């Protein structure tokens, strides 16, 4: 192969006007044709179309191309498409390279055609330089364990578990609470059809409990996740129920238990005992002891009333937490959402005025199985209210509370609630105070109309404050009707705050365990908002329900089924291919120092002290390349991201006008994805930056940075995931260490260390990326030619240009 003549074909994509709108594609193609080894360069309207792919295939055959470069969108989007096309034409897929001239060029420099075109040329030049050094490789196949883990037993988790189990896969369903059912179990009716919530959920819950393929782990939490797509090792902590499975749920224990506390399930509106079942339809129906409340702490039984009452001898206070280890191939995250706590909005008096309730408390009050037996009553005097107000957007769409998003469900939930009141007490006067009513789904508008027809009055304008009448406990709402431009002061018997949803307060734990990304709102981020809406960026992990964004029951179920299908595809195949991006060892150069083994996050490299050599387990390798960056004797490099390839890219950037450019090394999962996100969001930033993609920032060897400075680059950016969020467990800690060492070196040599910047940016932080480039542009502009020269001198000694 090495003797073979290198013949590169370059395709510059217009992407309609997405690229051609701000990049002169013909000019770029023409420029490409002048580059070494390029035998063919074309521009094409939609390269990813069938015709575009056919064109590439034909050219490969006709022009004997042995390398292909496509300059179009992000490789995160279409690299697989083009790789497949190459393979179909008989070209090894690792001989394909992409230049990202859309997300990272045309879309972020919409208003500077000249600069965008120049940058596109550079990006193509970098890709061609790398392409010339590409080597064929074959993927590694890894078996997929045909078992799935579903985290969260709300309606989404239930649906996902049932779908997978019905397909024939073993499913572990882990739920933190004593029963599955989640938020839906607490609702009275569902919109827009007004079905009884628990009536439609309970059969599904018992299906889960009975299903031979589902192992239900309630009162349990995931505490550790290791491994990778197809081969996760998950540790689950099963907290003790103190009641054995023999429990017949007769309830005799609860009757004699002397301890009581507000029932979480009923939002604190009813009492439960220390030994209890959260609700009648709970699955599993086994009772549970709340150890915080029970008198029997530290294994000493003080009170044995329940033990004596239990005929089946099912109560066992000696139960201990138990860690179970599961091996699964796929994971579905269905952890749901929390409800906004309105007591942080003092003007609404929640927590102070008894007759101000939340929509969730309303659900329990109107529910026949709830604490008031379905009678909607004012907590202050237990009377049925005659005038009721709903306040919308409580804890949603607000900068101040940090919940800037629309919670999706509250408008329809209020409309449903208002109709429920009208159904039972038609004389009730109902006012809804809103800013926008969002009735976007199937059947929603009809329900909205029905509410209006029933006489529910919708007033645009939220109350600024609620004042309670000391005598009657009625509530005064003071606000402005913004349609009439008139202030209102209205008296109500009861006010229902339509509270929004928010990310689970402890989502970081799951985020950290599964190395996921979150959006600015705090919900989990999908791999692609349109094309992979239920996949996490991390392979083998999928989302269902409110964990990904607030959604109603129908959407949660839809997404759950989609997630189950996506996970099923993986498991049906039974194997996944892992990219050939593992390290290559040059045994001659290796001095068996063991540094690579120390930094490997996966323990895929071990030092065999007896044989004085390192051993690599490819299947365990995650592909971060940190080992290659660490190796002091250049004995290790990373397949497809070899030292030569990356250096060729650096050299291509710095060939001309290096002193005006920023060389950026971005990790594939966070920083590069964040830069893509900036592009998708059309955030504009200076065109001086050239991004080199590595799988992990841990791949960035000091010599790369030194090389860039030695060749006169104005500034260098190293960007990766936030510490703790590294896709490769902890590889980016090494990045930090290396950059700090470089800073020290720059300082010692009298160089401006601001020229080297380190950025932690998640895939959702496009804005952070863009503002960093702005910041660095100022540095670039302030750098003097002397400074550039000094750096050249310092680093050419070390790195050697």
């Amino acid at each position, binding site marked *: 192969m090495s003797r073979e003549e290198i013949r590169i074909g370059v395709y510059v994509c217009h992407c309609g006007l997405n690229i051609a709108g701000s990049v002169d594609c013909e000019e770029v193609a023409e420029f490409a044709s002048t580059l070494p080894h390029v035998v063919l360069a074309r521009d094409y309207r939609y390269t990813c179309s069938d015709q575009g792919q056919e064109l590439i295939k034909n050219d490969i055959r006709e022009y004997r191309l042995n390398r292909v470069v496509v300059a179009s969108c992000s490789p995160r989007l279409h690299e697989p498409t083009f790789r497949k096309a190459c393979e179909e034409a008989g070209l090894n897929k690792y001989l394909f390279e992409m230049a990202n001239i859309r997300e990272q060029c045309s879309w972020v420099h919409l208003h500077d055609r000249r600069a965008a075109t120049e940058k596109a040329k550079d990006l193509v030049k970098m890709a061609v330089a790398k392409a010339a050094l590409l080597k064929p490789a074959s993927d590694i196949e890894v078996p997929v364990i045909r078992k799935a883990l579903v985290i969260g037993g709300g309606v989404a988790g239930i649906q996902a578990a049932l779908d997978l189990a019905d397909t024939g896969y073993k499913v572990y369903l882990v739920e933190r609470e004593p029963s599955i059912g989640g938020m839906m179990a607490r609702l009275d009716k569902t919109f827009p059809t007004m079905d009884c919530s628990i009536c439609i959920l309970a059969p599904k819950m018992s299906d889960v409990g009975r299903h031979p393929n589902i192992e239900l782990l309630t009162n349990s939490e995931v505490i550790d996740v290791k491994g990778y797509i197809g081969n996760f090792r998950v540790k689950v902590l099963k907290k003790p129920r103190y009641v054995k499975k023999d429990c017949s749920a007769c309830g005799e224990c609860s009757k004699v238990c002397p301890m009581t506390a507000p029932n979480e399930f009923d939002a604190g509106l009813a009492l439960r005992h220390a030994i209890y079942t959260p609700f009648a339809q709970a699955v599993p129906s086994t009772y549970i002891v709340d150890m915080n409340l029970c008198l029997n702490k*530290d*294994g*000493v*039984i*003080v009170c*044995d009333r329940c*033990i004596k009452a239990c005929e089946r001898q099912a109560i066992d206070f*000696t139960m201990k937490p138990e860690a179970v280890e599961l091996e699964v191939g796929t994971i579905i995250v269905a952890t749901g959402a929390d409800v906004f706590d309105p007591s942080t909005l003092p003007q609404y008096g929640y927590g102070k005025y008894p007759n101000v309730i939340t929509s969730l408390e309303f659900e329990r009050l109107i529910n026949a199985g709830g604490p008031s037996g379905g009678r909607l009553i004012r907590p202050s005097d237990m009377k049925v209210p005659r005038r009721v107000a709903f306040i919308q957007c409580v804890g949603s769409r607000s900068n101040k509370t940090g919940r800037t998003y629309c919670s999706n469900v509250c408008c329809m939930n209020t409309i449903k609630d208002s109709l429920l009141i009208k159904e039972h007490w038609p004389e009730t006067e109902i006012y809804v105070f809103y800013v926008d009513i969002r009735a976007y789904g199937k059947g929603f508008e009809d329900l909205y109309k029905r509410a209006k027809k029933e006489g529910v009055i919708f007033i645009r304008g939220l109350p600024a404050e609620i004042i309670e009448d000391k005598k009657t406990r009625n509530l005064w709402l003071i606000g402005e009707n913004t349609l009439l431009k008139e202030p209102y002061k209205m008296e109500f018997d009861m006010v229902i705050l339509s509270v929004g949803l928010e990310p689970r307060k402890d989502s970081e734990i799951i985020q950290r365990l599964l190395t996921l990304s979150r959006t600015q709102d705090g919900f989990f981020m999908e791999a692609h908002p349109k094309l992979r809406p239920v996949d996490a960026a991390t392979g083998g992990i999928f989302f269902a329900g409110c964990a990904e964004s607030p959604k109603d029951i129908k959407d949660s179920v839809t997404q759950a089924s989609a997630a189950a299908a996506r996970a099923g595809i993986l498991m049906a195949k039974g194997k996944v291919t892992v990219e050939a991006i593992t390290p290559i060892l040059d045994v001659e150069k290796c001095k068996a120092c063991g540094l690579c083994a120390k930094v490997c996050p996966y323990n895929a490299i071990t030092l065999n002290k007896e044989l004085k050599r390192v051993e690599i387990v490819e299947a365990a390798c995650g592909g971060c390349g940190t080992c290659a960056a660490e190796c002091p004797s250049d004995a290790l490099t990373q397949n497809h991201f070899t030292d030569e390839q990356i250096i060729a890219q650096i050299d291509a950037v710095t060939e001309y006008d290096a002193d005006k450019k920023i060389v950026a090394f971005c990790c594939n999962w966070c920083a590069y994805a964040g830069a893509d996100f900036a592009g998708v969001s059309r955030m504009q930033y200076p065109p001086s930056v050239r991004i080199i993609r590595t799988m992990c920032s841990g791949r960035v060897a000091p010599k790369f940075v030194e090389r860039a400075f030695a060749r006169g680059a104005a500034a260098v950016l190293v960007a990766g995931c936030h510490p703790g969020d590294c896709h490769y467990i902890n590889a980016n800690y090494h990045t930090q260490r290396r950059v700090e060492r470089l800073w020290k070196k720059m300082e010692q040599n009298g160089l401006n260390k601001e020229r080297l910047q380190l950025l932690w940016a998640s895939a959702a932080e496009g804005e952070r990326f863009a503002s960093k480039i702005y910041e660095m542009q100022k540095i670039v502009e302030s750098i003097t030619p002397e400074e550039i020269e000094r750096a050249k001198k310092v680093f050419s000694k070390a790195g050697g240009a």
Partner: protein
Amino acid sequence: MMEAVEHPLLKYLRAAMIPHIWCSGCGNGIILNAFVHALDELQIDLNKLVVVSGIGCIGRAAGYINADSFHTTHGRPIAFATGVKLAKPELEVVVISGDGDLFAIGGNHFIHAARRNIGIKVICANNFNYGMTGGQVGPTTPLEALTTTTPYGNIEHPFNLVHLAAASGATYVARWTTLHVRMLTASIKKLLQRKGFSFIEVVSPCPEIYGRHNKMRTGLEMMEWFREASVIANFSDPAKAEITPEKIVVGEFVDIEKPTYEQLLYEKMAKLMKEESE
């Protein structure tokens, strides 16, 4: 708060003997209490119950319980109980005695009764020393513990009673401390309902004699030690059921069924007599 009402369990005790003579903070009272609680909950017929005890503080228990009882010579309660059980197998025979009595001078009786699976029940109050005679070192005194005869720390390895009982063939073996009184009562109930040789060790505070040498001057301090050090490990290996200052392994260790000595004896006798008569 009320007064001058009779304690509901007094009917199981010899009223004239109460209050008992045990020290303040002594666990023997709790063992007695748990025992009569169990009698009450099972509604045991006191006419069918025989309590046997040996020498030592807890030896007085036989005298306090309102049933037919023997207060026997030192180390011999199991021997007496064996006699009673063989003569009248329909009686419930319970030995309540101390660690010194049962395992020092009476050690042989214990292991052989367990080996033979004689259907008697043994409750041993383990207070780690000879309390009644002034606090000398005994077969259960932990290593390094201070007693009147080991002022520089005990150098004898103690018996692990539950391991000894299990190894000797007891069909039910449990250990609790006097703090685990609910479990103790439940265990005694089990013990009373079983057929074969059953044994419960009760780790019991002796603040006046043992405690005062070992920096635990009150019963409460000893009970707090039990609370902090106890680990419940039901059906774990009795060989590993250690008692150290840091850890007291408690729980049920053995629960099996096998034919009792008296059962086999009477069957054999019946068979022989039948053969003889034939």
